[in-house]
Every structure is written in C-alpha cells, then in structure tokens.
C-alpha cells in the first residue's frame, strides 16, 4: 500500500464525516469523534507498515511527492497530533458545544482529518505548487476551526484576525513564489537549488522572491515580525484548535521551511549568505519578541501562545545553523527533533488547560491557584510540561535547546546566542510563575477536581514521553538519522 493512499483516504474520511453529519444530524458526537480517531489510528498503523519507498507512489504523483525520512517523520507527526487533538476535542466537547451553532461539533472532528491530510502532503512536497496547495488546504480549514465557537466573541474575533492576516500572508507567499519562479524558472526545489547555484541567475530577483516566500512562511511558523496574530488567535480559538495550531500548523510550516531552505542554502547558492543572515536576525528577534511580552501575561493560554513564538525562534535559529558540522543530524533533523520534543510538552499543557476548562475553570493564572491542593496529579503534569517548555535538563525540552545552543556556539553566532540566553532566562520566569501559582496561592475554591482515567492515561503517556526523551533521546535520534535519501542525516 502506498503512503499516498493513506493520505487520500484520510481526506476522504473527513469528507465522509462531513456528509454524514449533514444528512444525518442526530448522529452522536462521540460516534463521529471515535470514528475520526479510529481512522487516524488506522492511518498511523498503516503508515508504519506502508511501503516507504518513493517508487511505490503512483507515477503521476512522483514529480511532486517524495518519501524521505523527513517526510515520513512529519507524516507520523501530523497523525499523532491530529489524534491527540481529536481526543482533546472529544474531552472538551461538552463545554465547546455551548459556543457553537446548534451545539454541533461535526466539523471539529472532520476538518482535522483534512488538515492532517494537508500536512502529510506538505511533508512530501517537492515543489512550490504542492506546497502552496497543501498549505492553503490547511490554512483554510484552520479559518473554520478557529472561528468555530461562533457564539464566543473571542473565537469569532480570533477567526477574523486569522482570516485577514492569513490571507495577507498567502498573498505575500504567492507573490514570493512568483518571483522565485521568475528568477529560477522552476517550481521544484531541486530545480531551484540548481538554478541558484548558477551565477547567471539574477541575485536580486532571487533574493526578493526568497525574502517574500520566507515572510509568507514566517507567518505560518510565527516568526517575528509576522507573529502578531499568534497570541490573539491562540487565545481566542477553542483549546484543541489552539493545540493543533501550535503544534501541527507550526510543524507543517517548518517542514516547508526546511525544504525551501535546503534549496536556498544548497551548495553554491548565490543567496545563501543573505538568507542565513536573515534567519539569524529573524530568529533572534523571534525568541525575544516571544519571551519578553510573555512575562506579563495573566492568561495561561496566551502565555503558551507567546511561548510558542519563542520556540519558533529557537527553531529558526536551529535552521540558521546550517552545516552544523559535528552532529549526526542536519539542521532539518534538529528541527524535526525539536518539534518531536515540542509536541508532548505543548499538547500536555493544552490538555491540562482543556481539562481545566472542562471542569468549568478559566484559563488565567489565577485559576491555577491552589491547583496542587485540588488535584496534585494535574499540577504535576502541568509542572512537567512547563519544565520542559522552559528547557530544564532531564526533560525533552532541554535536548532540543541543547542542539540549538551547540549549533550557535559552533558557528560563533554570539549575538543570536545572547538573545537565546536572555529569552530562556525570561522563560524561567514566566513558566515558573504559573507553576508557583499552582503550588503556593490558595485558590478561592478548594474542592477536588476530577479527571477521567483516559485523560490521565493520555496525559501520563505524554508526561512519560517528555521525561523519557529527556534522559534517553537516542531512539528518536535514530529514527531521524536512519535515512535513505540523505536529506536528514549528513
């Protein structure tokens, strides 16, 4: 079975679920949800056993689709995050449905499948057309998801902001693609790399196109100064969607960025120096603009949004450190590694947030007051998540940061390094502010919180993953470096 079939099947399942809900409105949401989850699980299983050879793809698709380690990794990644989001949606369904039209949630289960298919395509994209189409599939679906809780003014506002800014970024992206095409005469990454190695190619046009393209992609991954949408949208969107945006959408953006940069920074590229410098500047700016405002946040959800920006900054800095001579992983591999560690910690954070919402609590830091008394398990989970986000050693988050630091020092990017250090120090402050609130301040309400066993199990797995990856990251590294195409490993 080819991987492409799985993706197509997933999209079809999404469509089917939409139709089912449309024609059979009384179908219960747990049926829908569980079907979607089952579909994702099945896709995941199939992905593992599918033929991982590019040659197995249908021949008409092969020029646009590739199956390298990176692609397969991101496909799996997309499936896992979709699975978690679906499950979180199911968990949050009771209170989410209060904010939707007629209390329906069908799209919340079907659209993620389509988004997932889009992300999986994106991971395999070999040219800018595919990138654009897949990216838009994801983005447009997200417009709907973000604004889904229409009765909530915040969700609607988030939807509008995401819509306008997202569309703006799309415009910039396409314009950039146009100029890259104009400069290089091709849409495929391989071709672009080849054309850029040719000194005859117009450097200015290529730089212009690349800059626009990177701005468009920068928007998707929340790079400064294109990050302004992130706090507002993350805060307003329903929690599962925020988690999806924060992990899935960002990962998708980064896989594209990795591919594009592999082309722009390929051996002999005429624009390599400029692009790399741009990445450094943008990355440094992003860690700072993510971390500094985060110190003053009172809403945990918004805080996580800023944290997400800051992490995007670290990822950009990792990408900026090309040819990081001495690790097994290329910068793309490091980004993939970082994202793999970023997934459990972020999802765990949003999971706890969602569970709190499900228990009728708010999302402000003050709502976390006294949590350790009310539910020690929840508090511990949140602590693990935040410790990892802050990048404390023995958690997964530290290894990712360590790679970034290694790369920056190796290249002697001291300015970027100091920005990263300042941001990480500020990170200690805002993450622990929340943790401290959970343990110190007595909440007004001290009644115990109950959470379902299944939630506990999922959260426990995520927490265990954080800790295990923190002390034993080798398996993940092996996955990322057992590469055939030579893209990930050097």
């Amino acid at each position, binding site marked *: 079975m080819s991987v492409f079939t799985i993706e197509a099947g997933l999209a079809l399942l999404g469509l089917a679920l939409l139709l089912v809900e449309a024609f059979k409105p009384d179908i219960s949401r747990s049926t829908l949800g569980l079907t979607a989850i089952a579909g994702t699980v099945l896709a995941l299983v199939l992905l593992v056993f599918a033929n991982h050879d590019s040659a197995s793809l249908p021949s008409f698709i092969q020029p646009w689709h590739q199956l390298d380690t990176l692609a397969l990794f991101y496909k799996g990644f997309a499936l896992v995050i979709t699975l978690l989001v679906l499950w979180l949606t199911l968990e949050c369904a009771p209170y989410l449905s209060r904010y939707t039209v007629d209390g329906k949630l069908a799209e919340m289960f079907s659209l993620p499948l389509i988004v997932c298919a889009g992300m999986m395509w994106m991971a395999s994209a070999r040219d800018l057309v595919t990138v654009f189409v897949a990216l838009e599939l994801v983005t447009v679906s997200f417009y709907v998801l973000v604004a889904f809780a229409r009765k909530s003014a915040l969700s609607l506002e988030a939807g509008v902001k995401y819509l306008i800014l997202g569309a703006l970024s799309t415009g910039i992206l396409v314009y950039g693609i146009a100029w890259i095409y104009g400069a290089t005469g091709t849409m495929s990454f391989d071709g672009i790399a080849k054309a850029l190695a040719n000194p005859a190619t117009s450097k200015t046009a290529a730089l212009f196109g690349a800059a626009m393209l990177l701005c468009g992609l920068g928007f998707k991954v929340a790079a400064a100064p294109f990050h302004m949408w992130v706090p507002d949208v993350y805060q307003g969107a329903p929690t599962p969607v925020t988690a999806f945006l924060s992990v899935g959408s960002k990962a998708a953006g980064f896989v594209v960025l990795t591919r594009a940069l592999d082309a722009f920074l390929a051996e002999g590229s005429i624009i390599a120096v400029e692009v790399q410098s741009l990445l450094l500047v943008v990355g440094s700016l992003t860690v700072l603009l993510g971390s500094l405002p985060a110190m003053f946040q009172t809403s945990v959800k918004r805080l996580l949004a800023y944290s997400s920006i800051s992490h995007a900054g670290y990822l950009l800095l990792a990408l900026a450190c090309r040819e990081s001579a*001495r690790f097994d992983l290329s910068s793309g591999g490091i980004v993939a590694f970082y994202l793999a560690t970023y997934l459990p910690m972020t999802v765990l954070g949003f999971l706890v947030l969602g569970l709190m919402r499900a228990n009728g609590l708010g999302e402000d830091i003050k709502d976390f007051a006294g949590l350790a008394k009310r539910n020690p398990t929840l508090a511990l989970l949140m602590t693990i998540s935040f410790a990892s986000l802050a990048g*404390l050693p023995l958690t997964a988050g530290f290894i990712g940061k*360590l790679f970034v630091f290694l790369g920056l020092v190796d290249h002697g990017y001291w300015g970027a390094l100091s920005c990263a*250090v300042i941001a*990480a120090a500020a990170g*200690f402050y805002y993450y622990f502010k929340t943790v*401290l609130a959970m*343990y110190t301040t007595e909440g007004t309400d001290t009644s115990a919180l109950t959470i379902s066993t299944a939630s506990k199990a999922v959260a426990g797995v995520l927490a265990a993953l954080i800790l295990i990856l923190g*002390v034993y990251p080798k398996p993940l*590294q092996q996955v990322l470096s057992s590469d055939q195409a030579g893209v990930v490993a050097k």
Partner: protein
Amino acid sequence: MSVLELIIALPLLAALAIWLGAPARAASMGATLINLILVFVTTIQYAGKTGLAFTQSRPILDNPSLSFAVGADGVSLILALLTTLVMLAAIWQIQDRPAIFYISSLLIGGGALGAFLATDVFFIYAFHELALIPTFLMIALHGRADAAQRKAVAWKATIYLGAGSLVLLAGLVWLVLEFSGGSKLTFDLEALRAQAALTPLPIAKQGQIFFVLLLGFGSLVSLFPFHSWAAPAYATAPTPVAMLHSGVLKKFGLYGLIRIAMPLLPQGVHVEWVQNALLLMLLGNILVMGLVTIHANRLDDTLANSSVMHMGYIFLGIAAGSEVALKGAVILMFAHGVSIALLFGLCGRMRNQLGTLEYSKLGGLATHAPAFTVLFAFGAFASIGLPGLTNFAGEVMIFAGSFTNFKAAALSNLHWTVFLALWGVVMSAVYMLRAYRGIFHGNATTGLFMTDPAVSQRVPFILLATTLLVTGCCPWLLLNLMKSAL
C-alpha cells in the same frame, strides 16, 4: 550496575515513594542512612586508589554523544560524603512538617549526588538543575517571610541561577565543541580530558572559555558581583533547604570549575586578565561581603552573608590554581558545607523556638542551652577558621598553595590578594564573635528563653560537629582520598 548509580537513585526513588504515599520520615531517613553508609563504604573502598573508579557508562545519544556516565574519584567522593552527611542532618532535624519538606530535601540531595558523581558534562549540568527546582519552590512555598517577600526572594534566586546556568551551558557547549576535535561531539569528561591533554587549546582561548565558565559557575556560587540572590535566599529558605543549598548544592559551581574547567583549561586561570578579574571578584566576596556581614544584625543575615563571603576563599584556591591550593579548595568546600549546614540548622531551630534572631533581643542563651551553645560554637569557630576544625586546613592549604610558586620572589597580584583575604579572616572573626556574644553571652535574664534540644534532636548536629572535629584534626583522612593530581 555501579554502586554510584544506586547512590544517586536512592534518594530520588525515596522521593517518588513518598509522593506515592510512603511514610515520609521513615522513608527519607531510611534512604539517607543507607546512602550515607553506601557512600562511606565506597569511600573506604576507594582509599588508596587514584583516578576514576566505579565507572559505568550508558549512552543516551550518539552524536553529539551523551551518556549517563558515573564515576568517582577523591574529589567527588568527598563531596558525595558531604552531601549525604548534610542530607541526613537536614532530614533528621525536620520536625512536624509536611511531606514536601522531605521530598524536596531528597530531591536536592539526590540532584547534588548526581551532579557530583556523574562524569558526563550533560548530566553534571542536568542533575544540578534538577536540584535547583525544589530549592526555588521551597523558598517560595515555605520560606520564612510573608508571601510577597519570599516570592520575591525566590524569584531573584530563580532568575539569577537560571541566567547563570544558561551562561554556564553556553560555556560548556563551547568547551565541548572546542575539544571535540572535528569529528565526533562528546560530552564525556574523560574523553574531553584526553583530548585536552592531547591537543591543548591556545592559551588566549583557554582564558576566554574559562572566563565564560567562571561567570556561569560563579553566579551559581554567588561570586561577587553575582551574589545578591544568595543572602536573602538563605535567610528566607526553610531550614533543610538552606542547609542543603548553602552546604551542598552551592558547591556545585566550584566543583564544576575544579572538575571541568581546570583540567580542560589548565592555563585558563593563569591568563593574566582572567586571573586579575577573578581576583577582583573574589576580593569583592571577601572584603565587601565581609563588611556587609559585619553590618548584619540578625543571625540569619550574618550566616547568609558569611556564606557568600567564604566562597571567596575557595575561589582564591582556584585562582591560585596550584595543586595544593586546589586540594585546599576541595577541603574547604567540604568544611564550609558541613559548618554552614550546622549553623543554618541551629539557626532554624532558634528561629522556631524564639521567633526572632535579632541580636538586640537575644542574650545569655549559653546558660539555658549549653549543649546548643557548644554545637553552635563548633560551627562558628569552624567558619572563623580555627585550627582543629576542617575549615582551617582548607584555608591554610589555599594560602600556602598561592605561595608554592614564589620563584621570582616578587609579589604578584595573587599574593596581594592573599594578604587582603587574610584580613577577611579577621573580619569573619569580628562578625562571628559578635553573633556569638550577642546570642550566647551576656545576662541570661534579658534575652529570650530557649532550652536545649532533646537528645534525639541533637544527633544531626552532633554528627556534623563531630565531622568537623575529626576531619579538622585529621585532614589527612580527606587528603589521602586525593592522591592523584587535580
């Protein structure tokens, strides 16, 4: 499986067990006692050996190669001994406190043990951080001051130490990259050492890296001017945390300098500008903080500031960089750890009983609490550097070690610093005796009333005081563990 792994794991497992519902006091006391015995036996087994022993390595990442590697030599065993001793005392003296006191003490101690016994730079660093978190939490949660103030104190410590450890991380990363030769990145200390011996770095570069490491490690040890977190943190921290952090965990930075920076960058500290900078900073510790300590009028302030001040002497040993001075620094680390833990333990007890530590409100306690007084005297005179207690041996070795290379018979900055540092010894006598006079001497009827602790509650302090006396009278017991050159 190495016995060291067991030593590291035991406290952490005990903490986990308590969290899952095991009886806190029994579990933590049991684990700590067993650990003390284990460390003691291991130390005895090590006696006479040189180099690393009890090694074990489990790779966790390939390239950059990280591994959970443990191993012990004299220096790490001395510090492990210190850790387990202070842990036992700190846990023993906890009375009627919630389980989190035990858990945090176990975590701090376990983290410190991990940091001292690991031989992979990654884990050395990681275990230290593990131990820091409960420290912050405990200051913020159960500190002495009112909620706002103790939180402010905890924040200050968190940000300072957080920033410091990030600088440190940058320095360590730099170090690893410089020594990893081109092909394979490794964090293994032994491999790095081998590489450093094979191809030493250019001296100027050694100086630069050393300086970054000095800033990183230094701010963890409250090196002037990166010290202002320490005094309030110790004055505010709950007793076991103050004992463990000031006594044990703070030694990590010094351990790191001796264990990582000095062997890999042997010329680093001798680069002129680095040494001058270090000398200036440590003079700040000794003279400025000495005067600040003299100004203190509460016991907890005095102890907290004195603990910052005394770090200057250990840094002096590092600045001197000679064999004798470095070994002296290790001895002084041990000595200071035991003495300050003893003092903080007693100070905590006084605060519980009396409610205040201001000298103006105290006096004449020697009459009511003679045993307590004797125990306190051990700590106080140890920190004054009285011969017969361990601190003296360390200090005198550091001073002498600064003069072992007096070849040109010319006084360098180092030597002048030693003279000024010696004046610091006078200052520490001033404030310690002032404290002793204020609390224990004087008319017994004017001060607040306090009795001796029950015999069972004296045990932890007796343990520490005995350690000071035994290793103070027989410092060769510790020195014999450090037969190999540092």
